């Protein structure tokens, strides 16, 4: 294993927000009464810390286990072995448009999606004007969602998730959403938040985003850690790797 830094290194200064220890996640397909399920380890022996206030990147090829790792960190999936400790922090995976229902109004969907992402109904009602203005859907917010274009839905989904504002954000390839103009706006907003003191874990195929936005990064491959440490070094190691699939460098977020 090409381990650049110890996963436990935090410089002795910052507080650990999430600590992942010897994490393993195993999938088993249900095959019936008489056929034994063949286990598949999506993650194995994964150990690292996320520190308070940092933006932590996760890179790796498709099928490396990045999304599974985020889900376990968010408490959506349980680890088969090992542990994930969030030390009392509210950790939320920003799932855009989660639970959106086509026959409800945009306004009702903002509240529903906000509650699913960890806010209370009261908080979402209070933030409604900001959500609607950011999404640019003031004239359509009381229309049923089925009448929205996919771009309008994407804008509403991003704006809702952005305004939920949890203590620790887990982001899976969602730096931008909607049409070109909204895409720039949303990417700018999320970059501003990433540069603040917010603790963020960011999964992206866009290596430049990881290099420029993250202090540290983790390279995952076949469910195992290949490297963890300063983002520039991890990205460089990943790019130099002979196993790196060629299309990754051109995927834009």
């Amino acid at each position, binding site marked *: 294993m090409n381990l650049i830094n110890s996963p436990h290194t935090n410089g002795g200064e910052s507080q650990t927000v999430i*600590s992942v*220890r*010897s994490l393993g996640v195993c*999938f088993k*397909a*249900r095959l019936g009464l008489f056929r034994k399920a063949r286990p598949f380890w999506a993650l194995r022996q994964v150990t690292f810390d996320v520190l308070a206030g940092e933006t932590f990147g996760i890179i790796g090829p498709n099928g490396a286990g990045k999304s599974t790792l985020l*889900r376990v*960190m*968010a*408490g*959506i*999936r*349980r*680890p088969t*072995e*090992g*542990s*994930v*400790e*969030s*030390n*009392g*922090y509210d*950790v*939320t*995976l920003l*799932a855009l448009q*989660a*639970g959106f*229902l086509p*026959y*409800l109004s945009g306004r*009702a969907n903002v*509240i*529903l999606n906000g*509650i*699913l*992402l*960890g*806010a*209370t*109904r009261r908080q979402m009602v209070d933030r409604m004007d900001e959500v609607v203005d950011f999404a640019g859907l003031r004239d359509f917010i009381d229309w*049923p969602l089925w009448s929205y274009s996919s771009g309008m839905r994407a804008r509403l989904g991003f704006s809702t998730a952005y305004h939920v504002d949890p203590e620790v954000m887990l982001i899976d390839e969602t730096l931008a959403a909607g049409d070109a103009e909204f895409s720039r706006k949303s990417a700018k907003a999320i970059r501003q938040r990433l540069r603040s003191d917010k603790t963020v874990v960011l999964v992206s195929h866009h290596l430049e985003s990881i290099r420029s936005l993250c202090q540290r990064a983790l390279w995952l491959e076949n469910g195992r850690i290949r490297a963890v440490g300063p983002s520039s070094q991890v990205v460089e190691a990943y790019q130099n790797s002979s196993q790196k699939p060629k299309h990754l460098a051109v995927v834009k977020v």
Partner: protein
Amino acid sequence: MVREFGVWAQARREGFALAGRNWDLVLYRVYADLAGEAARTYARHLWWVLEPALAILTYYSVFHLILSVRSSDSVVFLVVGILLWRWFQASVMQGANSIMAERALMQQVRVSKLVFPLTAVLSNTVRFLVVFSVLLVFLWWRGHATSPHALALPALLLILFAVITGCTLMAASVVPFVPDLRTVLDNVLRLLFFVSGVVFPLQNIPAPYQSLAYLNPIAVVIDAFRDVLIVEKWPQWGWLAGVFALSLALVAAAAAIVARYDDVYPELE
């Protein structure tokens, strides 16, 4: 091997805060369920009354006109039984599938899985209460439910609500592990329908099996509703207290199962 999962330990510590958010979610999803149902049809909320009315018409034709199953006031007898049964059956069947139906959502966000069966129970309860109000008007028009015995209705509704919640949560908690149980459940409910005195009096059941029929909590509650609404006498509170206690135990056991396997459900196929 460490089996501890910190995020969930934290979720449990959050206690009331998390419960509060989940209640927001339950209420919002109930609203969404009812609003969505109306939005998908032309007759909208009228279906809450029309659909049971059509079901009653069907059962009345079969059991009263064709099979000649009679009681003191057949129409009222049938209406009370069928409406109560439909509340029970719709909640249990919808609830049994509720967790697995939200598999995609469960893989996106962290949410208590109790939200889904509770939404099924509460949506069906709202529908039932609307129809039940219509039933009460119908009963007054037929000269029933006018005695002080009708004061027992809130207690009976609470007891049946507890029975429904217990059965729905239990079905919802177990079915995801063994999806085959849906078929079993379907047939158990069909059997229960016939042995709960929904369409004919329990007295019609042969003597050796009659006492067995009264061990069925649904039969006890439906009988109690008829005592109060039609016969106009006080129900058998002793039996009902037993049913209520049993239901609360079922709710607690099912809630414990769902809480224990909360993070396992998203992984099931």
